[in-house]
């Protein structure tokens, strides 16, 4: 057999799709690891079904995982996959329309039974029609897989469980990815016949690519020019959990996570629960209110308190957060946003809790609000959040989202020495101690914790007398305390880096974003600039307070476009704060922005202008 032809590609996007039972997420993750080792830049996006386990073969049960990898640097999982690997008709139907015209469909021929076509609501076999629009390659996946393990006398059910490794082996061959990391993982993870089965199937899939006629060509994607360093893949939730551990290490204080399970935040609890040897304690509370209260209690007692939740749970915490605002205690509240309102679309993404974070408490109740821009950024944001919390004695809200939480990117592992440290100094001197005396710069009150002789004092949610902190109902004092609570948070702006503009310092259009839309926005803006459009972008990590020079930066542009996965929340803040005619580019579909959607928005604005 003649050696097959090899083509070189700049970038490829592959989507694996099948039943939630088919191990799609695992397949994707393993392919991602090999791809990272191959030195490509990459981004991934898993897409879970909402139901736990919808009946096998149904549309509701389809699970997907998309990976985008390239020889250049990329920031999104790609708008449309070039390749779709579909394990059954439902997976095909749910995903095929996203595939680039002329793209490759790899199908499990054995799955196209009457019954499965029915379950996918296909009146007739779609394959003939699809052949007109795509390159369709059909593989008797189920049979080949059973072949590969027949000597191992597994139950058929167990045998079929492996077929995702066959597909993985095949794709690794097709794109020249090494099987090593996966084989290593299999050896670590399984034993006995299962281990052997998975190994064989993986290799069989690879060999199949090599030998079968179906694939005349294989592809290489050259290494990307990536900043040198030590790398790993990381999802937003893992980075966030590790950021909490890092904060504890860097501040030398144990941390208590108060959490109540909720999609998509639960994984942070799961991850942290595995790291007790860092002194981290995790508390699965009876509800979100108790979780927040426990975290604030930890802050009162002198440790680091944090809680992680999502929209519906965040609402329940607001009364506790409000107490922390008045009691001026450090605590970090993480809201990993999901699509709503109410239970909404629990597994889908959205960034619509910005205004709830800013204004969702009774009375004027200011606090810092931060948002990570990429999965890896979740790590660094948590470090900053904790430091703001203790240095300014305030609750801090961090807004992540379902997209950041679950998608992965190669992450340059920071050298621990380079991470910010902060040494916490508790008040210990009884001499003229006053619970609400303030640091001249930060306006932070002293952190005086139980166990310190001579500092016994009482705080609570009733309005405090300035300095002494005793209960006070006098009008002027309330006015002053309200101002102080505001001013303290406002002063954080003093230490924020000036806004960095991607593009030119002034021009016709500035695109302003925040949170998980970073990748799509920067990609769109860079593409547009490459084509000569006068557009730049700013991405805000600090939603409250804004960087001091933001107003000025906005002023240097003729138009301002604000792409958000909500109905225009940041746009409203910018309009109210700076009286600039910020225009909202809104998408509320539970899905991240496609680069093309943002480019279209940019072009529309600039066209309108011209």
């Amino acid at each position, binding site marked *: 057999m003649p050696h097959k032809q090899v083509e070189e590609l700049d970038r490829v996007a592959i989507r694996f799709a099948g039943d939630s039972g088919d191990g799609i997420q695992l397949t994707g993750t393993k392919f991602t690891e090999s791809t990272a080792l191959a030195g490509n830049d990459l981004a991934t996006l898993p897409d879970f079904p909402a139901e736990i386990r919808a009946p096998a073969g149904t549309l509701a049960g389809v699970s997907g995982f998309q990976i985008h990898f390239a020889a250049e640097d990329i920031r999104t999982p790609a708008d449309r996959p070039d390749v779709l690997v579909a394990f059954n008709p439902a997976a095909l139907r749910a995903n095929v329309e996203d595939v680039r015209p002329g793209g490759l469909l790899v199908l499990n021929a054995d799955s196209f039974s009457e019954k499965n076509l029915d379950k996918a609501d296909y009146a007739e076999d779609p394959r003939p029609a699809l052949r007109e629009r795509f390159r369709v390659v059909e593989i008797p996946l189920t049979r080949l897989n059973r072949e590969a393990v027949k000597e191992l006398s597994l139950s058929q059910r167990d045998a079929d469980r492996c077929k995702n490794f066959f597909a993985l082996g095949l794709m690794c061959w097709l794109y020249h990815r090494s099987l090593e990391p996966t084989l290593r993982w299999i050896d670590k993870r399984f034993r006995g016949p299962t281990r052997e089965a998975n190994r064989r199937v993986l290799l069989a899939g690879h060999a199949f690519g090599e030998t079968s006629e179906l694939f005349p060509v294989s592809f290489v994607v050259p290494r990307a020019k990536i900043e040198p*360093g030590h790398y*790993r893949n990381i999802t937003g939730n893992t980075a966030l959990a590790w950021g909490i551990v890092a904060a504890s290490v860097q501040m030398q204080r144990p941390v208590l996570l108060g959490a109540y399970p909720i999609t998509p935040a639960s994984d942070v609890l799961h991850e942290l629960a595995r790291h*007790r*040897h860092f002194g981290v304690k995790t508390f699965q509370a009876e509800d979100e209110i108790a979780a927040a209260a426990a975290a604030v209690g930890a802050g009162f007692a002198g440790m680091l308190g944090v809680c992680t939740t999502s929209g519906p749970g965040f609402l329940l915490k607001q009364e506790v957060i409000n107490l922390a605002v008045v009691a001026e205690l450090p605590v970090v509240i993480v809201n990993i946003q999901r699509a709503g309102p109410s239970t909404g679309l629990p597994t889908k993404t959205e960034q619509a809790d910005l205004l709830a974070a800013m204004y969702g408490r009774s009375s004027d109740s200011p606090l810092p609000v931060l948002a990570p821009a990429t999965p890896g950024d979740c790590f660094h944001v948590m470090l900053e959040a904790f430091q703001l919390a203790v240095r300014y004695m305030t609750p801090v809200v961090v807004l992540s989202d379902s997209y950041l939480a679950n998608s992965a990117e190669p992450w340059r592992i920071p050298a621990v020495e380079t*991470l910010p440290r902060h040494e916490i100094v508790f008040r210990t001197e009884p001499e003229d101690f006053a619970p609400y005396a303030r640091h001249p710069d930060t306006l932070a009150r002293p952190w005086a914790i139980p*166990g310190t002789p001579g500092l016994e004092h009482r705080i*609570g949610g009733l309005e405090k007398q300035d300095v002494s902190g*005793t209960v006070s109902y006098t009008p002027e004092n309330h006015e002053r305390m309200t101002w102080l609570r505001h001013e303290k948070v406002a002063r954080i702006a003093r230490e924020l880096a000036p806004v960095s503009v991607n593009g030119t310092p002034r021009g016709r259009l500035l695109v302003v974003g925040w949170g998980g839309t970073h990748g799509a926005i920067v990609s769109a803006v860079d593409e547009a600039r490459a084509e000569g459009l006068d557009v730049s972008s700013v991405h805000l990590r600090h939603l409250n307070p804004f960087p001091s020079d933001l107003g000025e930066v906005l002023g240097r542009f003729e138009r301002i476009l604000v792409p958000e996965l909500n109905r225009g929340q940041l746009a409203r803040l910018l309009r109210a704060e700076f009286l600039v005619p910020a225009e909202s580019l809104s998408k509320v579909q539970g899905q991240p922005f496609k680069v093309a959607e943002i480019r279209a928005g940019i072009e529309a604005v600039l066209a309108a202008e011209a």
Partner: protein
Amino acid sequence: MEAATTATRKDFASDQEVRWCPGCGDYSVLANVQRVMPEFGVPRENFVFVSGIGCSSRFPYYMNTYGFHTIHGRAPAFATGMKLVRPDLSVWVVTGDGDGLSIGGNHLLHTIRRNVDLQILLFNNRVYGLTKGQYSPTSRVGMKTKSTPQGAVDYPVDPIAFALGASATFVARTVDVDAAHLQETLRRAFAHPGTAFVEILQNCPVYNDNEWVQVEDRKTRVEWALPLEHGKPLVYGPKGARRGIRIDRGIPSVVPLPDGSDPVSAGVAVHDERHESPAYAFALATLHLPEFPVLVGVFRAVERPSYENLVQEQVDRAVAERGPGSLKGLLESGETWTVSE
């Protein structure tokens, strides 16, 4: 124990002017708590009083210890957080029948079942005091209040039965004005590892006066109070009218005790606060006026590891097995790769 000998009641009184209505039962509880504190030999700075919202929840302001007057009904959750990270502190929760059993019932339930090492004092005046007199979950059926002008219709919850239903390890009841009994109960609560739940019958002269008159009034107390003592038969009533409590297949009843008669042979139960099964204590919790006396004292006191210690043990075990966490190790765990120039 130095602190114990040197500290005095005054050391535990804060400089805040106490603000309850004249005659409020809370004054007496405050005084007695301040009196016993010095005995505990805990440095004052290691006490924390945590409360929710209500008249009773103003309590921490008057204790010269660390104090946190939190929000309505959530005090046990704040206290759990404190105790989880600072097992060295002596954390006391002060709550009311509304704060603890209406809005806060769920936190109380879970704190109790977890057996967090806290002393929880529930001031039961069977009314909402701070909000000026609505009925509470412990109010009697038929009680007329601002919110129930035709009388309350909902069946009340009994704090002791509730706590036992949540498998509490320590459950006691005492009376605001019975100084000796209150102090002794506080000592027992302090000594208990795990959640010590104490219901304090408290009088609210303004909105629900004389709710507990039978046991508040010295004269009637002998007749109506049955002080529980481990190993002693369940006997109450003045000479000539002594009665006992018998428990037959789980169902309690009253047996008259002619003078000189031996309670035990008359089938009167002997109090055992250490029963592994909460069933016996629960049987006692179902006894209410007027058919039965008011049982005061320790209903149940059994040992079970406290939550914060079990969590700490897991941390210690993790450290022992895996060594103290290394951040570098964590960041580099699993698959990694190096990109060179």
